């Protein structure tokens, strides 16, 4: 499972005291879970935290089982959050993980209940913040969820050692305040490579090897009135105060005094690296981040500790808050604190940076400069800061002068040979050839297939949540003059789509068409196993299938089509859109994720060719003197290996189509040209390596005959 093999990482997870782990931030976090003595780990994969689940899946047999740790790849973030239920009644530590903010949204119901009932054992939620550049999801702050549910939120400084420390502190904090704790980590921090001085892994006292003996019951832990009232009170009277005490006593936040005592910068721990680099570039910090400007690094951003912050604010004239995203909870709480304490300090934040968006260096350096110049630090003259800033930005003029028009954008798309692409080729061809049927509303979904909304397909009118494609067309369908189409991947189907989509549509007797893209994995997260993959993340057989599940909720119109068979797909879609049969029509497009397939096939074929075995490798090509360069094929396909090249014919001005050597021979380009009646330029070549004697003989005869006939 997963995009890579993690043998090396699994080995490092077994390290003990005195050994040094080398790897990415997310691996350090994973290691710290084992060093904290967790009894269970689960989660739903997604960038940037997939690696945690992948590496533990690979470590299950060798490392987790011997320690008695239960591991699962949960069915959804809601299921993962509910896993924390174990820590409500029993003193067991556990961790779950997901991509936020979307995962946190899905998990909200269970999460609120856990946070209300409270936990006995430490419960940690590793939140992969998919925010800013490279994010694939909508942009919101997890901070607000933490606030509403009174869940402490850690946002530590970005070094591997700090990640490990705060995972361990997170469990301590959770147990001190009886609340689950969020541990937030950003994309780049997850992927940052560094080193970690390890400690020994801790064998949990309660585990699959030394299981619980008796159930624990307490009405006070049941989320029903009147106990819910008591729980609410406890949150604010006991749990959050306990959390504040822990944060203070353990020194989770870092106060770094400096000689510029009238100034101060308060920041989220996760923004420390960027902030001190910014100060460094402006001449106000050394490489390690030592600076005359006093800093307050909040590794715990919820709950804030008033006395700690007031201590920092007291005696200062100007304070800058470096806080990413909106609403700006930290800045507002700081201002309120200063106001209540009647401190004469000017607190600023968003106005120096940006009200929204990722705090990238250009933004942070610009904001720091604005703040410092206006606050007039003593140690460094304003001119020196301005000179350094000018040196950083002088080249922008050169670039502007040399760049007459914007450089082309490069939107992401389907991989070479992807089985989902031909389905959208079919939908686009049907839309063009038969608009009365095919030009209809398409409710897209989350997954690799969301790229259908991008060029060249532009198929998909809305994207509304994972597995929510069908549900999101529930009101569109009855209001439309023809049948509408909804799309779902197999990942989305099992995550949410079966219940909220299919069962809901059946229950409400919807008359519409659902296309399920079954590529055998949850590919968008990194080819993770899902219920219909055949085995779970622990490699145990599951025996669940999509058609079975559909029939189980009463769907009778089900057609399964090979996703590469474009004519059949067009025909089936047309049937589904025009049949007199009422109700939900489901078309399952089946084809294995090509990334996963190639990862498996390529090494195998290399070995077989080397061993002298006969291997047939299909590839596609374009005849350069048949292609006229109208590029219709690209508009219905968009395969990365179907590209352009200059026409060998000097009389032709426009570039022609060309299949480059990254082609995996899936045949979609030829099928598209065929189904849309584009041109006769495409051909398939079967390259037969190490052919047998008979094949060679036939080939020689054929070439003799053809050679005699063929003109030069």
């Amino acid at each position, binding site marked *: 499972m997963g995009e890579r093999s993690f043998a090396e990482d699994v080995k490092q997870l077994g390290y003990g005291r005195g050994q040094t782990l080398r790897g990415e931030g997310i691996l350090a976090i994973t290691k710290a879970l084992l060093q904290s003595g967790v009894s269970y780990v689960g989660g739903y994969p997604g960038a940037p935290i997939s690696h945690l689940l992948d590496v533990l899946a690979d470590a299950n047999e060798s490392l987790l089982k011997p320690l008695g740790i239960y591991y699962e790849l949960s069915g959804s973030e809601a299921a993962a959050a509910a896993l924390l239920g174990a820590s409500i009644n029993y003193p067991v530590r556990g961790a779950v993980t997901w991509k936020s903010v979307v995962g946190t949204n899905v998990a909200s119901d269970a999460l609120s209940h856990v946070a209300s009932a409270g936990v006995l054992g430490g419960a940690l939620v590793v939140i992969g913040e998919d925010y800013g550049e490279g994010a694939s999801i909508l942009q919101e702050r997890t901070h607000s969820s933490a606030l509403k549910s009174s869940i402490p939120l850690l946002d530590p400084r970005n070094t591997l050692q700090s990640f490990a420390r705060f995972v361990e502190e997170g469990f301590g904090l959770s147990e001190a305040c009886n609340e689950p704790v969020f541990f937030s980590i950003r994309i780049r921090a997850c992927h940052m490579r560094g080193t970690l001085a390890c400690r020994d892994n801790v064998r949990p006292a309660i585990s699959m090897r030394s299981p619980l003996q008796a159930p624990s019951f307490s009405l006070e832990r049941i989320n029903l009135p009147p106990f819910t009232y008591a729980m609410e009170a406890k949150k604010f009277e006991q749990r959050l105060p306990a959390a504040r005490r822990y944060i203070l006593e353990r020194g989770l936040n870092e106060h770094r005094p400096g000689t510029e005592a009238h100034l101060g910068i308060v920041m989220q721990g996760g923004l420390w690296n960027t902030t001190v680099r910014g100060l460094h570039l402006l001449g106000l910090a050394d*490489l390690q981040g030592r600076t005359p400007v006093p800093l307050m690094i909040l590794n715990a951003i919820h709950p804030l500790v008033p006395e700690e912050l007031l201590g920092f604010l007291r005696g200062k004239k100007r304070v800058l808050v470096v806080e990413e995203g909106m609403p700006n909870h930290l800045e507002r709480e700081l201002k309120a604190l200063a106001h209540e304490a009647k401190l004469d300090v000017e607190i600023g934040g968003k106005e120096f940076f940006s009200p929204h968006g990722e705090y990238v260096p250009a933004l942070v350096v610009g904001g720091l400069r604005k703040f410092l110049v206006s606050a007039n630090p003593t140690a460094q003259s304003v001119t020196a800061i301005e000179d350094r800033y000018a040196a950083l930005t002088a080249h922008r003029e050169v670039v502007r002068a040399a760049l007459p028009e914007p450089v082309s954008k490069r939107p992401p798309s389907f991989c070479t040979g992807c089985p989902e692409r031909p389905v959208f080729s079919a939908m686009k061809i049907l839309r063009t050839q038969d608009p009365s049927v095919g030009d209809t509303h398409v409710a897209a979904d989350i997954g690799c297939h969301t790229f259908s909304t991008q060029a060249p397909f532009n198929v998909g009118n809305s994207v509304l949540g994972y597995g929510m494609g069908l549900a999101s067309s529930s009101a569109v369908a009855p209001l439309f003059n023809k049948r509408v189409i909804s799309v779902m991947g197999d990942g989305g189907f099992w995550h949410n789509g079966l219940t909220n989509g299919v069962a809901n549509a059946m229950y409400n007797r919807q008359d519409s068409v659902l296309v399920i893209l079954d590529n055998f994995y949850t590919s968008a997260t990194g080819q993770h196993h899902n219920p219909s993959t055949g085995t779970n993340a622990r490699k145990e057989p599951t025996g669940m299938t999509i058609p079975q599940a559909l029939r189980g909720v009463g769907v009778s119109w089900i057609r399964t089509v090979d996703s590469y068979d474009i004519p059949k797909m067009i025909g089936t879609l047309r049937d589904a859109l025009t049949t007199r049969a009422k109700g939900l029509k489901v078309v399952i497009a089946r084809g294995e994720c090509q990334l996963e397939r190639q990862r498996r096939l390529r090494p195998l074929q290399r070995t077989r060719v080397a061993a002298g075995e006969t291997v047939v490798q299909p590839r596609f090509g374009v005849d350069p003197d048949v292609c006229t360069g109208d590029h219709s094929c690209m508009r219905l396909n*968009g395969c990365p290996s179907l590209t352009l090249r200059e026409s060998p014919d000097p*009389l032709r001005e426009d570039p022609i189509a060309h299949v480059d050597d990254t082609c995996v021979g899936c045949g979609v380009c030829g099928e598209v040209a065929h189904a849309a*009646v584009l041109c006769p330029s495409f051909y398939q070549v079967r390259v037969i390596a190490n052919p047998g004697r008979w094949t060679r003989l036939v080939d020689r005869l054929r070439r003799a005959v053809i050679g005699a006939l063929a003109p030069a």
Partner: protein
Amino acid sequence: MTDSGLVSLLIPAVGGQGGGVLSEWIVEAAALDGYRAHGTSIPGVAQRTGSTTYYVELVTDRDATEDPAFSLYPVPGALDVLLAPEFLEVGRMIEAGFVSPARTTVVCSTHRLYTIHEKTATGGAIYPRERLDALARATARRLVAFDALSVARERGTEVNAVLLGALAGSGALPVGVAAFRNAIESRGVQVASNLKGFEIGLEMARAAAASSGTMSGPGANGGVSGTPPGSPDSTESLRQRRVRRDFAADLGALPDAVRGVVEHALPRLVDYQDAPYARRYLTRLRPFAAREAVGAIVARHLATWMTYEDAIRVAQAKTRASRFARIRGEMRAGDAVIEVTDYLKPDLDEIWGILPHRLVAPFARWAERRWPHGRPTLGQHVRTTTVSGYLRVWLLARLRALRPVSWRAHAEHGRIDRWLEAVERALAWDEALACEVAQLARLVKGYGDVRRRLAALFDTGLALALSAGEIEARRRAGFAVSTALTERFRTLVLEGPDGETRAAALAAAANAHVAAGDLDGLHTLVTRSAAGIG
């Protein structure tokens, strides 16, 4: 960042290019050489063919006792090395402000992976290489640029390894060459091939450093500006020479700019049909031949149009011996056996296109009414490397003798004549307008419905040019508006289907002005359209 004790390096890659491996090698090499280094990345969703970036920092002081506050991001204006495995990404990073003349060394491959927007236009929409080249030269402190992809392919290695070598050879990092080699070995993947690529890149960068310092330039670029594998082979050159000899007198009479085109055109026409057909071409070209600008355009498009791709032409192209040789070469088949299957799907027009006009014209007219879009087709997968499959296509190519009287010939030559008449008429008015009218022929391409759609737009454009020209001719104040209008119409169509819709709308609006004799209105319309309004 030499002044602050840090060196920073950014790798902008295209998802699937293996930027991760490249950055891991660098971090590993730095560590092996005793430097504190770290790297990070944002693969995320862009992993699927979008842009991805990888970032590395190392501390130049090997004796440093504590880690710096590593940055997770490159800082615009404070980047030391841009290492790019694709050329457009260099442009995109320059645009984003990461390359500064004061400090950034750019080590990159000049090959291109085209974006979807470059690929989907009907015409040519590739971001101009010269512009990227000029941009890189203007903004990089040092530029080490060459086509690492073609180097890697020629020598049987990987782009990333070649680039790693070039990075090592550029001296932009303090890391020693041996450490890079060790990093490749310690990662243990395809070590031999990667080490080979590394040495090649190292050598190239060192040679560049010894000479001018940069190695970029159109000559160093492959890809689109290089020689494509499908270029005319030696037999064609031989044929070309023979044809050139036969037509020496005609060629000698032409001005240089036109002759250059005609020299390519004549062999193509002889190959397509016969020598008399080539003579017919020359006769048609004659009225324009003396005017170099319009003559060259007509010569070019008349040649491609007169060799329109009917089923016979396709069969010709698919059965040449040189075709199979080309395919073997492209597939690097070596001693492997190859089997070729052609995807052929002629529609009704193309099928009776090869039959005599007199015979099928009535049916064609009926079919046009019956199936205005999407004529019935005859789809087939023909295995042209088998004897029977080859024979089917080969026999089709033998029908060349029927071509001059075919239904398709009748239709194509009729349209060609209308085009030439229009160019001639425009030429009587104004050469610039005539050039634009001649350029409209660029729209006629594709097969089946695509070609019918584009030909209809061509007809619209032709009528538009002439009617607008007519008005300007009456005013006697030049032909700027009709020239600009015709040019704009063509540009829009070549943008792709959305452009086609806008071109049709432009034509409709223009025709209304023409009908009203409103030249000013027409002028405003063209100006607004060119500015992207309306």
